[in-house]
């Protein structure tokens, strides 16, 4: 790497200008993202007090000890893993199928395409109310339909039942996020050269063979990066889960309730953040190695 001293005066001026342009971003990100990450690790070793005059008390690993022996933590951890697994697989499958459908010409395609984006662009708070309405026990329209075909009991409150709330939340998350995946896959599909398929036609390949041997390999990279991106984002997804159902009890909800509801235990919450952060680092390094190949 060239050092700044070896540069010509003109290049030096350019580099300085480059630094000037990026500095507001670097300062903001440093102060409010990087510093908090480390400050959080520091906090996780303290009994944190926000009362003026009372200082933080160093407790060593006690927060972690309390966390790792708390069965609720492990339950949340398990639910979070399941939630990530279901939503990643589900939204990619739905996104892929819809992208394959929309890759064909048909009358009305423009309208359907615009409509598909609705769940993704509509605010979480609005769509959450709508799903809560259709799933109301007794007289929600979806509840009535599902109970008529015998899939559920009409009196069940699907959303607020702690046993399956996370399934409803997973379904909602798939519904909300598949359009993103569909858009990414569709734009990749449209860049596959048509000659590939023509050549396969000449060789007498059927639809499945064409999908299996041309489409899927072309999509491999984009699907791989989508799996990791969705996995990372859904691991700490808060709004979509909490606003639909507090009962879904994923790790971010557990953290939120520990830190900001009732008697705040910020030290323990910081320990949860640190654990989340470590898992994230693991997922991110997978992403960097497998997809970005740095």
């Amino acid at each position: 790497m060239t050092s700044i001293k070896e540069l010509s005066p003109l290049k030096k001026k350019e580099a300085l200008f480059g630094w000037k342009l990026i500095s507001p971003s670097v300062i903001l990100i440093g102060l409010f993202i990087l510093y908090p990450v480390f400050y959080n690790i520091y906090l996780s070793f303290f009994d944190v007090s926000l009362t003026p005059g009372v200082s933080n008390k160093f407790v060593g690993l006690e927060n972690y000890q309390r966390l790792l022996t708390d069965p609720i933590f492990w339950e949340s951890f398990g639910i979070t893993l399941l939630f990530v697994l279901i939503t990643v697989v589900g939204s990619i499958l739905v996104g892929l199928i819809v992208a394959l459908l929309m890759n064909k010409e048909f009358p009305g395609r423009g309208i359907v395409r615009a409509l598909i984006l609705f769940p993704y662009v509509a605010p979480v708070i609005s769509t959450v109310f709508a799903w809560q309405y259709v799933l109301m026990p007794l007289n929600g329209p979806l509840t009535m339909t599902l109970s008529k075909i015998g899939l559920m009991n009409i009196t069940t409150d699907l959303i607020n039942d702690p046993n399956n709330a996370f399934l409803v939340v997973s379904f909602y998350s798939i519904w909300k996020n598949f359009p993103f995946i569909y858009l990414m896959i569709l734009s990749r599909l449209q860049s596959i050269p048509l000659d590939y398929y023509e050549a396969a036609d000449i060789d007498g390949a059927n639809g499945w063979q064409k999908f299996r041997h041309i489409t899927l390999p072309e999509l491999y990279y984009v699907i791989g990066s989508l799996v990791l991106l969705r996995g990372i984002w859904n691991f700490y997804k808060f709004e979509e889960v909490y606003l639909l159902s507090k009962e879904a009890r994923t790790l971010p909800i557990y953290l939120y309730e520990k830190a900001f509801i009732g008697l705040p235990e910020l030290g323990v919450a910081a320990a949860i953040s640190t654990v989340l952060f470590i898992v994230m680092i693991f997922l991110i390094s997978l992403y960097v190695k497998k997809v970005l190949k740095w």
Partner: protein
Amino acid sequence: MVVRKRSFIKKVLFWFLIAVVVIFVAYPFVYMVSVSFRYDSDAFDPGLIPDNPTITQYAQLLGLQESIRQQMSQEEQQLMKLLESLPEDQRELVFKNIQAQRKRESFPFLRWFGNSLILAGASALTSVLIGIFGAYSFSRIWFPGRNLIQRGVLLVYLVGGVILSVPIYDIFVRLGLTNSSGASLFSLYIIYVIQTLPVSLYMLGNYFRTIPESIEEAALIDGSTRMGTIMKIIIPLSMPAIITVFIYAFMIGWNEYLFASIFIRPFPGAYTLSVGLREVFFSEHAVWAKMMAASVLTAVPVIVLFMSVEKYLTAGLTAGGVKE
């Protein structure tokens, strides 16, 4: 003959799948709109077309009509008559109580809408402005440490939200930025800028790389400064991308609940839509029609914004994925 039959079955299957997709996507929206045109008492009437359609929910939310809750009830009016017989100071006290009670029960939708609009709009604008210069810097100019910054942007783009909530809350409390509604709104503004800045940097950086450098070089040779080319060439050429990024950043602020709930819970006047609507939803019963009308009004601005840039959306998204 066999071939035609098979292609017919295929066609039916195809349209069936399209119908499934449309129903899957539109289902909750259809009910949202249908219920929003009903009275609260009719919210669970069967069917999609309301028997007694009304726009009263919208009129009340938009402040064009007083809601029943805001109209003085019979009892209150009788109470007021009673009050007249009380001594001056006591009357004042009781009157204030009644007023406070009514204020608490009202549903200041427009105010929340305004708060959300200002907060999401201002933070998205700030983030895009800082992002334009930052992204230009690392996508066009060589300087020591550029690689590190490019990779760093990608990494912070993946971190966020709940992981940072504890330390950020702690920092803002210690800075005294949670004491009043103004300070809390300012804290939220900073936090939203931070949350959207990596997205802006990342997406704009990807877009700037697609603009041929030769266009700029010509201007630079003609004696234009770097700043001049950013203002006169890069920004006009990237307008579609800039607007798309702005809308994404706007949506992040418009949707945000986590930090808003932590910072502005004690200050009802500063509520954003997501905090306010959730509060109403849990504190009052049987207001489904009103909640649905509020949901429609909350969704309309972002849906309109997105649909107006739909053709750029794919390009913006595939420029490297979009954060939520």
